[in-house]
């Protein structure tokens, strides 16, 4: 079963996406902690696309799709624009250093990478897609 939602790039829509994902997962017999983790992972990627890739331009849209196949959850977040984010450059941050310098951002993808089994980015033409996978077994 596949579910899809389209939102404009406004950070107020983060709540809309979280409700969409949690409503879908509510019927999957998962623990509250796991549901929260999956909602959080999607929220972090969507927030990055809205705030960093699209500078909160409400004329831009994101599509979020959920699919369950072979005991694996797949979340697909598609941006209508090519993203400047390069997952190849990702390095796990040093949180103690973040505390020392008072850094406010930079732990979102750390959460995503620690929660999900696989995180994949691809850019085709004008579209950037992030796919998140989590096995249920």
């Amino acid at each position, binding site marked *: 079963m596949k579910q899809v939602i389209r939102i404009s790039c406004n950070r107020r829509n983060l709540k809309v996406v979280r409700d969409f994902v949690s409503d879908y997962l509510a019927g999957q017999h998962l623990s509250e902690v796991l549901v*929260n983790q999956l909602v959080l992972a999607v929220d972090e990627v969507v927030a990055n696309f809205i705030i960093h890739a699209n500078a909160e331009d409400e004329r831009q849209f994101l599509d979020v799709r959920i699919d369950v196949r072979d005991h694996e959850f797949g979340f697909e977040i598609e941006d209508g624009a090519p993203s400047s984010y390069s997952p190849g450059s990702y390095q796990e941050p040093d949180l103690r250093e973040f505390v020392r310098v*008072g850094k406010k951002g930079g732990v979102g993808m750390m959460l995503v990478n620690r929660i999900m089994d696989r995180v994949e980015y691809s850019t085709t033409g004008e579209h950037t897609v992030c796919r998140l996978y989590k096995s249920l077994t």
Partner: protein
Amino acid sequence: MKITQHTTDTTLTLALNGELDASSSVLLDTELSKPEILRTQKVLIDCQQLNYISSAGLGVFISHLQTFQDANVKLVFFNMQEKVRNVFEILGLDSLMTIVPSEAEATAV
């Protein structure tokens, strides 16, 4: 996100109600940035009604922690729901910040 404040001579308690994300975390950042907060001894964060926290919310606490420590202001979280505490644990923030089960324990820190 709704933030309710309670102040005593030595302690500021902030009760967080709702979801702390990239949209609502600005409100919390404003509260924790007030200069008078550094004149208190302890900032207690009541998380009983905090239903969700994202990296933006965590980032607000991370960004103020050193300033609080330098000013000898203790930052203590209590009444945290399991799913919210789990987010702190994923990053190991539970070892960098003080999280206790109850208000009584938070007051005793």
